[in-house]
């Protein structure tokens, strides 16, 4: 991915030299043309066309913002309810993610969605131990959210 972006910058700079103008608008035109060239040459690269990956990053952010808002509302409801009937607990959750930054990102996303908090990560990075605020009704729904996060992260790293 980094290589493709660098190549795109290089093509844009080459376009600026062709036009012999050092303005931002020329750079942008060159960048778009370079992206087009890389798109048509995409089968010579080992990884995907990098714009797809940008799209999946944006999709991950949108999913995350939606979950943050929804689950914050859920926690506010718990806080404001007159009787506090929560059943906290810690459950283990296996993850299919392998590299360090993916696991870190997943743990951060889980921690920022209310109702769940990562307590520990096993030493082989395979299992996350998650503290849930309301374990009974939450576990299945949480598993759904989790798979959506995990899938989105996998789409980014693929």
């Amino acid at each position: 991915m980094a290589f493709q972006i660098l190549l795109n910058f290089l093509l844009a700079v080459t376009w600026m030299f062709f036009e012999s103008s050092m303005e931002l608008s020329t750079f942008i035109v060159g960048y778009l043309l370079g992206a087009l060239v890389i798109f048509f040459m995409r089968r010579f690269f080992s990884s995907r066309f990098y714009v797809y990956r940008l799209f999946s990053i944006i999709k991950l952010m949108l999913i995350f913002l939606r979950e943050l808002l929804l689950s914050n509302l859920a926690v506010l409801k718990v806080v404001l309810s007159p009787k506090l009937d929560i059943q906290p607990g810690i459950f283990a959750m296996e993850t299919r993610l392998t590299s360090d930054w993916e696991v870190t990102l997943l743990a951060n996303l889980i921690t920022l969605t209310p109702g769940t908090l990562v307590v520990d990560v096993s030493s082989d990075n395979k299992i996350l131990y998650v503290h849930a605020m309301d374990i009974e009704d939450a576990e299945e729904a949480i598993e759904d959210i989790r798979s959506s996060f995990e899938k989105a992260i996998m789409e980014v790293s693929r």
Partner: protein
Amino acid sequence: MNVSEIDEFIGALLILIGGIISVISATGIIRFPDVYTRAHAATKSTTLGVLLSLVGAFIYIWLTENYISVRLMLGIVFVFITAPVSGHLIIRAAYRSKVNMTEDTVEDELKKVLDNQTEVH
């Protein structure tokens, strides 16, 4: 209501919502029974409250003064990156120093795993 009033209204509304969420999460810190559930209220709803306040300030300055404040954007990003990590570290330290929980239901795996680790050593 002319345009600049609407702009001010949007920014002020976001800041107000952020303040309300911060107050509610502070209430949660008082009401919840143990460290772990308190950390739930402390790390996340507070983050959302701070985030909404910062976004409100950003929009307000942008629309009324016509000035895009990069520092506010950086502040939003930094809060987002650091808040979950600090919450995780505090909770992990609490768990490792054996702070008790309330009436837990499923407190499975982690305790067993940690006990096994201490046996091995």
